[in-house]
């Protein structure tokens, strides 16, 4: 729950279509990673990924730190509709 809200808060100020942000949590996969699927509007995908994925990488790094606090391992996928 916490990671989902965190991703949403991180993405929200970066995009134009705030109503189109969807974050979905999937159950742990075989390697013990929880996968989060982030969907944003097609027009906003560049703003969330950034040059050479720099913003996406920053979002991941912050979320990994938050997940580490709860001793969980996560993965984040970013995509558009």
């Amino acid at each position: 729950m916490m990671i989902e809200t965190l991703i949403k808060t991180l993405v929200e100020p970066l995009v134009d279509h705030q109503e189109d942000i969807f974050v979905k949590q999937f159950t742990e996969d075989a390697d013990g990673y929880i996968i989060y699927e982030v969907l944003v509007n097609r027009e906003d995908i560049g703003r969330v990924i950034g040059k050479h994925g720099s913003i996406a990488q920053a979002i991941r790094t912050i979320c990994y730190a938050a997940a580490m606090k709860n001793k969980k391992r996560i993965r984040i996928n970013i995509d558009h509709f």
Partner: protein
Amino acid sequence: MRKKIIEGKNIDEIKLKALDIFKVPEEKLNIEIKSEKKGFLGIGSSITALVSLNVNPSEEGLKFLKQIFSIMDIDAKIEMMKNKNEVKYNIYSDNNPLLIGREGKTLDAIQFITRQVVSRNSDERIMCLVDIGGYKQKRKMQLEILATKVAKEVANSKIEVKLDPMNSYERRIVHTKLSDWRDVYTESVGNEPHRCLVIRPRRK
């Protein structure tokens, strides 16, 4: 600052459209009429207006940081220092190591995203710095000590030394520190993220 040119029949229509686009309270909107077209008997008249958001970029950044820490359930005190085109956030929290990360990676990520948020709300370029528990300050001191030590060795032995990969900010500290040395000069080689700094002896 975010801006948008909106067309409408009258000022109220523009306001409604702007509220729909920006999704902020009305008092935060700044509407500036660009051109007016008078129609015949009020039919076909239209107004073009430039609507901008009237928000303070540095306050947005502060709000953003506060939000993140409250979600992460970290008790943090944020100090904001503002100059003309520069804003600095000093963070003191109960879990500094977690927020700094290995080799300051998480700190860099937080600074990067905060920069995005601040500059998105601003026309001008604003320098935005984030420091957690004086980490950057300490790191700067360590790097300066290291730079002086290695430079002395290079000056004596005339053999060039390559330092570990560092990010641009840290390389800059070393470059600046050694810029006025007579016996050595510095150069960065390689590509990000493995770009590193080389200290070379100056030929006589």
